[in-house]
């Protein structure tokens, strides 16, 4: 084991440095020998306090880390009592660290030693780099300095103390600190003065013993509001003031041993209570700060959790970030096919990006690194650009606009990174969902494609086979056939041709309805007219069947695309005719049902089993009958359902009256006619 310790006391409270380098596993000092084993990957943690020259410390640590080719992190333990000047110092150290390629982390807690050690253990830190900023002779005596405690408790770590070279920093800091603390001492004195005044006021009515809690309360309050020093001052002053009330009164002399004892206890209580109260206060402050950040994170996760589409996640991310940061926010993402970024969402639609910013966005996306304000690249831009990175995918770039606003602090940027990370996770999730959905859709498409192929080959060929058969019979056997047989063959030719026509019509309709861009060309039309023309088109098919029409008089006009609705009726009637027994009756009943028009077409066929009543509207569903000749292509009712839903209506299959046959019920919403008055004469 090799150990080295430098101590250079320059008297400015800064430059004392200690270095103790524990050997690594191979027994050689990596810093001196420039060699290291790979068995433990070295990681450096630099602890800065914002009191000493933290930037010098960061630079020194960076050199050290570079020499060892080790990743390094700069940590600051926020005890909840950080003054603005100290905070600014930490910020500068953090920004410098980011520029030099290090990570930064802000820890919160009451015990810096415990926090640093816990973090080091969690992250596998091998080397701790510290600077010394002030001398605390008393603390050294009782072994309570940070370095002493770290050396004692962090036995497994290599701990390096680095001298801070710059001198200017701490002097300026001392001034800050004096100002900051002077205020606290004034508060402490004020608190005692107030207590004293109160004691004088109530003293005539209160026994002496009851005055001590009053002073105790004052000192505790001072301890809670300030720190240990001011609290001690308050305690001393309070002891003196209390002494005022002891015999002999109004003299600062204590004759009584019990009086001295009281004062002694009093001081002890105050010190202990003040310490406890001070710690509580710091914890509370730290909690508040953490809470604000946690709230933002929670809010974002809660909003993102239920979203299933990438587009809505993108929109919600931008909205939540803009709300949380109160800054203009935007999101750029690549298109589905090309890698070119385009603006997907912006908190303010008036946001405009100049070419410079767009270039930076492209850089951020391609390099997968954040850039813009407070970073190495494009630092002059008023934008902070963060890639939505979830290796190996990059979902785009988030931009936060800081134009006309104070630049973000490193802590804010770290918090922002956490929020963006959350959003990225949500995007990765929806992306996965999308892909699954696409795979499912692909499967469905494949199933439909094969069903379509089998349907086409069957339903096109069957009528064609009959047509070719009938025509060739007539051609070759013409004279040998009886007149009646010839008529029959001719009828077959005609009806099979019409059947083929209907099938092709259905195929065409299916393609058209499947197209999402279908826009209805609605017109006012009477349902009786539509039924009439549907019947006319099916004249040949309906021959031999009885069609009973029961249409309520004075039905309002429908506002539909007439040709499509006629096709829906043709399909329903076609279906009813197919399943009707020879000579059966088909009933068409139309009535008004609330704000809907209800059309029911009932046949006297075999009916549909309850389990299949929903499925008859599925494409290519043809029932389990097996004989596809009478079952049809499985397209007609599917198209009917599609047409009805395109018009805002629906179709259901119900058992017929007396449980015989099937009723197909078509429901269409009625719309108010534009003008109910009689047409202008």
């Amino acid at each position: 084991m090799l150990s080295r310790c430098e101590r250079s006391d320059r008297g400015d409270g800064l430059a004392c440095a200690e270095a103790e380098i524990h050997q690594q596993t191979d027994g050689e000092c990596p810093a001196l020998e420039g060699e290291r084993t790979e068995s433990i990957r070295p990681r450096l943690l630099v602890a800065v306090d914002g009191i000493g020259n933290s930037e010098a410390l960061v630079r020194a640590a960076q050199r050290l880390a570079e020499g060892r080719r080790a990743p390094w992190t700069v940590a600051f333990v926020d005890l909840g009592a950080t003054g603005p000047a100290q905070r600014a110092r930490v910020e500068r150290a953090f920004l410098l660290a980011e520029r030099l390629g290090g990570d930064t982390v802000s820890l919160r807690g009451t015990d810096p030693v415990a926090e640093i050690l816990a973090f080091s253990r969690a992250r596998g830190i091998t080397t701790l780099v510290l600077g010394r900023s002030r001398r605390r002779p008393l603390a050294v005596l009782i072994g309570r300095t940070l370095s002493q405690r770290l050396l004692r408790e962090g036995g497994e770590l290599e701990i390096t103390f680095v001298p801070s070279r710059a001198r200017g920093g701490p002097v300026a800091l001392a001034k800050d600190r004096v100002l900051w603390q002077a205020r606290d001492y004034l508060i402490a004195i004020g608190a005692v003065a107030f207590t004293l005044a109160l004691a004088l006021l109530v003293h005539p009515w209160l026994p002496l013993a009851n005055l001590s809690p009053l002073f105790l309360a004052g000192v505790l309050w001072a301890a809670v509001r300030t720190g240990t020093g001011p609290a001690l001052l308050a305690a001393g002053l309070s002891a003196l003031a209390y002494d005022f009330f002891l015999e002999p009164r109004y003299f600062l002399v204590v004759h009584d041993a019990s009086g001295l004892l009281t004062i002694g206890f009093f001081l002890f209580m105050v010190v202990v209570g003040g310490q406890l109260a001070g710690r509580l206060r710091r914890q509370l402050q730290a909690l508040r700060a953490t809470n604000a950040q946690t709230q933002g994170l929670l809010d974002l996760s809660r909003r993102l959790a239920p979203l299933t589409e990438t587009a809505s996640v993108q929109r919600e991310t931008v909205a939540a970030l803009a709300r949380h940061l109160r800054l203009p926010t935007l999101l750029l993402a690549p298109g589905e096919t090309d890698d070119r970024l385009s603006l997907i969402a912006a908190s303010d639609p008036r946001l405009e990006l100049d070419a410079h910013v767009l270039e930076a966005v492209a850089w951020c996306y391609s390099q997968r690194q954040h850039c813009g304000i407070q970073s190495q690249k494009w630092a002059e831009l008023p934008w902070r650009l963060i890639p939505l990175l979830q290796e190996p995918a990059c979902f785009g770039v988030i931009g936060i606009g800081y134009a006309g606003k104070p630049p973000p602090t490193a802590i804010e940027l770290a918090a922002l990174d956490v929020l963006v990370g959350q959003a990225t996770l949500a995007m990765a999730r929806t992306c996965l969902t999308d892909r699954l959905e696409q795979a499912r859709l692909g499967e469905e498409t494949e199933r439909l494609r094969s069903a379509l192929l089998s349907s086409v080959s069957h339903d096109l060929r069957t009528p064609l086979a009959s047509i070719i058969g009938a025509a060739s019979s007539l051609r070759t056997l013409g004279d040998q056939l009886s007149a009646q047989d010839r008529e029959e063959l001719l009828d077959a030719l005609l009806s099979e041709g019409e059947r083929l026509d209907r099938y092709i019509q259905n195929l065409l309709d299916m393609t058209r309805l499947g197209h999402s861009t279908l826009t209805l060309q609605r017109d006012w039309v009477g349902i009786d007219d539509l039924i009439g023309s549907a019947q006319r088109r099916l004249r040949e098919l309906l021959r031999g069947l009885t069609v009973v029409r029961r249409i309520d008089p004075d039905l309002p006009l429908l506002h539909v695309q007439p040709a499509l609705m006629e096709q829906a009726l043709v399909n329903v009637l076609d279906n009813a005719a197919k399943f009707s027994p020879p000579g059966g009756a088909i009933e068409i009943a139309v009535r008004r049902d609330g704000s809907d028009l209800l059309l029911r077409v009932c046949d006297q066929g075999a009916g549909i089993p309850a389990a299949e009543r929903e499925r008859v509207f599925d494409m290519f569903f043809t029932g389990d009958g097996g004989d596809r000749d009478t079952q049809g292509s499985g397209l007609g009712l599917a198209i009917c359902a599609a047409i009805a839903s395109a018009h805002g209506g629906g179709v259901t299959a119900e058992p017929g009256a007396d449980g015989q046959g099937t009723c197909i019920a078509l429901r269409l919403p009625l719309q108010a006619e534009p003008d109910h008055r009689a047409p202008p004469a």
Partner: protein
Amino acid sequence: MTQSTAPARILVIDDESQIRRFLRISLKSQGHEVLEAATGAEGLALAATQAPDLIVLDLGLPDADGKAILAELRAWSQVPVIVLTVRNTETEKVRALDGGANDYVTKPFGVQELLARIRGLLRQRGDQAGPAGCFEDGRLRIDLGRRLVARDGVAVRLTRKEYAVLQTLVSHPGRVVTQTQLLRELWGPTHLEDSHYLRIVIGKLRQKLGDDSGEPRYLQTETGVGYRFIGRPAEQAD
């Protein structure tokens, strides 16, 4: 059923040779003379040189848009034209009809349907002098000259619009009249979208004439296109 009208010279413009063959055979059987053209240009040339009495024009020609040929033809000729269209193209049909076609037949069609259309158009040409706007089938009597409509011998009271619609349809017997034509003629060009006016009038007319929309005897709806008066005069009834 297949009673023929006076023989006429009919020009068929269609690129499908099978369709031309089927039309030639059917039309010749009715005593008509048939001219055939496979392209629009050829058709226009024949129309100009041979002076046909009627033209059957396919709207889906390979060399030119059927509507363009129709427009060109209409620039110098008022010869009756029947267009052949496919289903699902209601707007196309209406455009062709409004662009000067006299009637249409949807492919695939039966020959009796085409023959009926041809008869309607040829009769109109020849019967201009006939009983000027008079219809009588034994049940319904419409006398456009005297503005008289009677059902089973009882005068039917029609409003002005009802009468105007009936008059327009009856004066083009068997021929489709588009909804736009009716709306423009009867309500003026500002009411072309107000088709519900027309629906109501037709509904009232059917009621008063005792017609059934399911099996119409007089007023037939051509879905998405317009209306057709299909009444068969007594002397022509089967």
